[in-house]
């Protein structure tokens, strides 16, 4: 019964997992809590006013009156020393001082300080009678697919697929090796490939639940939707799960203690948490670093998940990052098979 073995191995792995309450928490509940916390922290709300100060002086009252009309600025009147102090510690973004003509004191590397400078200047000029030569109409954007939560959910999904893929495979293999269970298994006629494939299959079973859980949650709570085809989305998640299971298998292929495998997992995952655009776009990194960042499997997964979820992209559009993912999975799985230590 050659097929019975792979079914039994997969079933054993699934049972082992669901009987471990901690593992279930980290895989299912933790990503939801993280989404919830970040979703509320960065929820859409009216933009904050920028705090600025006017230093006491001959024109202070006049300037205060003009600046208080700006909808963007929150203006206070302060004594010179206190004002400098608050600017230095970042409590205010701009100081308006001077005896006759205003002097703007600010740190030009701070984006909100630059905004405050433009806004303050505008308000003072208008108060003195400047007339705009043109009137532009404003249109405010807050569509689905462009909010922070829309950026965040695919990133968290990718991060979760990476974490559970690598841990799910790596931890159980190293544990079995430590207990000499791997050695006992190869003392039977079991095919080695059956064991490794069962690790993949059990991963794919959990992955289905994990992804569905997070996506339904994000839809119900934050109205985040998958704009592309659901089939494309599901297959993409499976490819992601496959790639990270392959990496997990390689990382765990020789480690003989939990400490060793934990260290290696972190070595592999932490750079991707930071670099691969989970919480913020990797566009902020220098151009020279971008080819390397795009070659990382989590970047590839996040980019394609965002394209499918937010832009409704199809396979043609995401062919390049999907290729990167498949390559990672295949190469790592093949390497792992060669170097795997059974005892």
């Amino acid at each position, binding site marked *: *019964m050659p097929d019975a073995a792979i079914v039994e191995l997969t079933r054993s792995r699934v049972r082992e997992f669901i009987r471990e309450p901690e593992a279930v928490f980290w895989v299912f509940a933790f990503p939801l809590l993280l989404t919830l916390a970040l979703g509320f922290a960065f929820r859409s709300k009216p933009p904050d006013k920028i705090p600025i100060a006017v230093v006491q002086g001959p024109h202070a009252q006049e300037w205060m009156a003009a600046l208080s009309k700006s909808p963007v600025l929150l203006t206070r009147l302060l004594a010179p020393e206190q004002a400098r102090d608050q600017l230095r510690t970042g409590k205010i973004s701009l100081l308006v001082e001077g005896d006759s003509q205003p002097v703007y004191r600010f740190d030009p590397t701070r984006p909100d300080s630059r905004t405050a400078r433009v806004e303050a200047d505008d308000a003072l000029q208008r108060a003195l009678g400047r007339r705009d030569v043109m009137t532009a109409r404003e249109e405010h954007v807050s569509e689905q697919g462009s909010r922070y939560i829309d950026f965040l959910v695919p990133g968290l999904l990718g991060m979760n697929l990476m974490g559970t893929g690598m841990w799910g495979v790596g931890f159980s293999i190293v544990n079995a090796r430590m*207990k000499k269970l791997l*050695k006992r298994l190869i003392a039977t*006629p079991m095919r080695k490939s059956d064991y490794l494939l069962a690790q993949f299959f059990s991963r794919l079973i959990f992955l289905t639940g994990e992804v569905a859980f997070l996506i339904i949650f994000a839809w119900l709570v934050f109205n985040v939707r998958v704009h592309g085809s659901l089939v494309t989305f599901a297959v993409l998640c499976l490819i992601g799960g496959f790639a990270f299971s392959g990496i997990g298998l390689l990382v765990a292929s020789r480690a003989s203690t939990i400490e060793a495998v934990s260290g290696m997992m972190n070595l592999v995952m932490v750079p991707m948490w930071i670099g691969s655009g989970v919480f913020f776009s990797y566009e902020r990194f220098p151009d020279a670093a971008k080819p390397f960042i795009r070659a990382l499997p989590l970047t590839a997964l996040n980019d394609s998940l965002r394209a499918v979820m937010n832009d409704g992209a199809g396979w043609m559009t995401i062919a390049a990052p999907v290729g990167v993912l498949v390559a990672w999975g295949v190469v790592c799985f093949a390497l792992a098979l060669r170097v795997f230590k059974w005892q």
Partner: protein
Amino acid sequence: MSDAAIHCRDLRKHYPDVKAVDGLDLYIARGECFGLLGPNGAGKTTTIEILEGLIPADSGDVEVLGMRWNGYSRDLRERIGISLQETQFTDKLTVIETLTLFRSFYREGHDPDELMRSLSLEEKRNSRVGKLSGGQKQRLAVACALVGKPDILFLDEPTTGLDPQSRLQLWEVVTKFRSGGGTVLLTTHYMDEAERLCDRVAIVDHGKVIALGTPAELIAKLDAPNIVEFTSDPPMTSDDFANLCAGYHGCAKRGDFWQLRVESLAEAVPRLLAVVESSGAKLVTLSTHAATLEDLFVALTGRELRDA
């Protein structure tokens, strides 16, 4: 096809710091129960794992059921059952799940429920492995070894650390397997286990067979069926017992304890009392027993099996 279940010649396995197996020959007939007896570190586990095809030998020749591991690995795995020294099965699975998993690896085999009954595990059918006692875990390990209906059963220290009742239960399982025509190779450092279960025994030390035969033959090699053990105050320091009596075959000292191998207790004991008294010491303890494999090991190596 030869009638050998296991045949190995000039087996060697050297590690950087130790010659684990150092020129070892074994011939185990089909239907035999064969014991590898020796202290910890004698090379028993390395030997049995080479024979099981789990680790390669540096040199030498191994045939199991007339086949070599190289090329017949899968066929051989279908026909042997193995219990390793320290396997821990998955704690979260139940007994029946573990057995069903192992059953799925073999083309032919026993029904897991039947096997559980014959190993008195049926009450624990749905218990998690993590909740089993040491004896129950060991019986599960043997059940996993038996589930593929093997021709040869390999047991590496099957009763180490078990309570007396669990040992008896395990011995029964081995006896039952043999009555069905199975061959057994086991390692142990318990003399009584070897004497009770094994048709033949090889005593192994430093990777070599230092004595081979049936338990009775081996004990007969001592030429001295009786052992006298005594302590005295002050302890005797000289080992000059040569003139004790006609049937004296030698002695060994462990701490304050002297152990003499003699043919006749009736002759040796009165003479020993006289020798102790004439040296000015007083006898503190005196005991005698019929010689065992343990005594043979002490006689061969000057060390004891359990703490050598």
